[in-house]
């Protein structure tokens, strides 16, 4: 479904990604792990068109993504939940969720100025779809709350919800449980499973919480200093000596 081949990306002198290749099959939960600064977020940014990889190829359902505009990539069905919360601060939860599916509702400026016919119909449809996501993620209580007034954990949930309202085929989730307590983490794990199983959305997940990664993932790739050092099932990864040393090496330094 998503094929990343020999992607390289530099920032000035440092190579954030070096010849990274991976292949995500439809349906599962695919995790990317690695120490801080390994290049995980950079890889997501290359996929969603925020950065342009220097070389290599990224294809989604056979179409090349490198060089495609960011908003086109998301419209192709790749949604994104950001690591550092990137919600629209001036909007309520409801508007944040509705804002992500504008491209699914076709009406023009003229219809909008009158808010009649097509515009009103599409807006109601949009609201209905958004309400489904609100229910899925238990956001009923804060529909009308400005996102800035929410706790960090709930904001993370809205971040995921906003990606889901786009009705994507694949969602890129970047560290959904960082900074969360145990209960919030368990909830989030449940939501990610629901997204994957009930909504049939392929999940590409970045996470430091090893427990979560091992429980949820079908397949795991490990990055270290921009280089892919291992790929396999969670069990294989847990036993891989190179992976263990990469993590231990970091802890000692």
């Amino acid at each position, binding site marked *: 479904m998503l094929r990343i081949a020999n992607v390289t990306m530099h920032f000035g002198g440092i190579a954030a990604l070096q010849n990274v290749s991976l292949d995500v099959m439809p349906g599962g939960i695919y995790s990317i792990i690695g120490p801080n600064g390994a290049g995980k977020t950079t890889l997501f940014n290359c996929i*969603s*068109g*925020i950065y342009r990889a220097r070389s290599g190829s990224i294809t989604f359902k056979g179409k090349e993504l490198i060089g495609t*505009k*960011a*908003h086109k990539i*998301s*419209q192709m069905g790749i*949604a*994104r939940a*950001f690591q550092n919360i*990137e*919600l*629209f*601060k*001036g*909007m309520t939860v409801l*508007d944040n969720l*509705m*804002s*992500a*599916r*504008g*491209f699914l*509702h076709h*009406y023009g*400026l003229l219809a*909008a*100025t*009158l*808010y009649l016919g097509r*515009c009103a119909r*599409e*807006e*109601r449809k*949009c*609201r*209905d779809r958004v*309400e489904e996501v609100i229910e899925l993620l238990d956001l009923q209580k804060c529909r009308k709350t400005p996102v800035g007034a929410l706790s960090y954990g709930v904001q993370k949930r809205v971040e995921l919800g*906003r990606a889901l309202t*786009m009705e994507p085929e694949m969602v890129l989730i970047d560290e959904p449980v960082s900074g969360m307590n145990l209960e919030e983490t368990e909830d989030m794990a449940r939501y990610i499973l629901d997204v994957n199983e009930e909504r049939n959305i392929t999940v590409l997940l970045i996470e430091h919480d090893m427990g979560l990664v091992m429980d949820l993932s079908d397949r795991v790739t490990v990055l270290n200093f921009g280089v892919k050092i291992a790929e396999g099932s969670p069990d294989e990864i847990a036993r891989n000596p190179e992976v263990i040393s990469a993590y231990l090496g970091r802890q000692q330094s």
Partner: protein
Amino acid sequence: MGGKFKTSYKGDMALFQTLWVKVWLGILAAAIVVCPQFLSTYQISILNEMAIAIIGALGLNLLIGYTGQISLGHGAFLAIGAYTTALAAGELNLPFIVTLPLSGFMAALLGMVVGVPALRLKGLYLALGTLAFGFIVDYILFHWDLTQGDMGMAVNPVQIGSWSVQTEKEFFYFIACFAALATLCAKNIARSKIGRNFIAIRDRDIAAEAMGISLAKYKIMAFGLSSFYAGIAGALVAHYQKWIVPGSFDLSLSIAYIAMIILGGLGTVLGSILGAILITGIPHGIIYATDVAKESYPALSGLIVDFKLGIFGLIVVLALLFEPQGLAGIYRRAKVYWKTWPFKY
């Protein structure tokens, strides 16, 4: 939470959500219809200025307040609207019902042209870019034969069918209709996907792109829309004043509009209206104060005239210091207070 639970989204998504809103709007409409009967010509002329300013401020707020694109060229777009209708009516003898939309579309077109290079500029650089555009327009108006530079040009009176709009009172009803329509349209745009896309771009442009929003398309649309409003406002100014000179559309007009939306409240329709009323009203208030002061303190009144601009600036600065959210922010707080009274949350 203080509100009532809404069972259907239809009610939730309606423009006027409660009976009270409808009642108040009805009262406001009635007041607008009858008030000219009780006001002097001078007082009505103030209202006319305010109504035109409301249209221009709504447009600028869509660009700056909603989309976050700073423009110092709003005055230039009013000028384009004013001169378009003046030239189209004067040189081509086109009727008002043609020249008014023409003014809007001409300004919108040029607004979108300005929007294209503006895609690469942000913040201060965008402000400088739009400022430069304003100077270019100024320069053309001063040097083009047709517009007669400093001398200015006459504008045909408004003629719709057999009705010609002449007196202040007639102008009041005429302009009030446009202001109401402009407000309704702005409100609708703001609550549609277009308004959400604008705010998304303002708040987090990278995330907006990741949500499938084309930055280029919606930034250009915001420029076009804002300029369309300015063009209409400019055309109304032209017909209302009956004589236009480039000097009345210079940088100071752009800044006055920016002051309106900041003082009223960025990113709200209500704020555009309140800001337009306040900024248009302040100079008249100062004149009024001068008249009153003249009787008891003649020396002071001379001082007020000298410092008119300074007093104006001081009021704006103080207002912003005490209420950074603008007048719309005060309104919002008052509403919450009212709803939850007597229980404080």
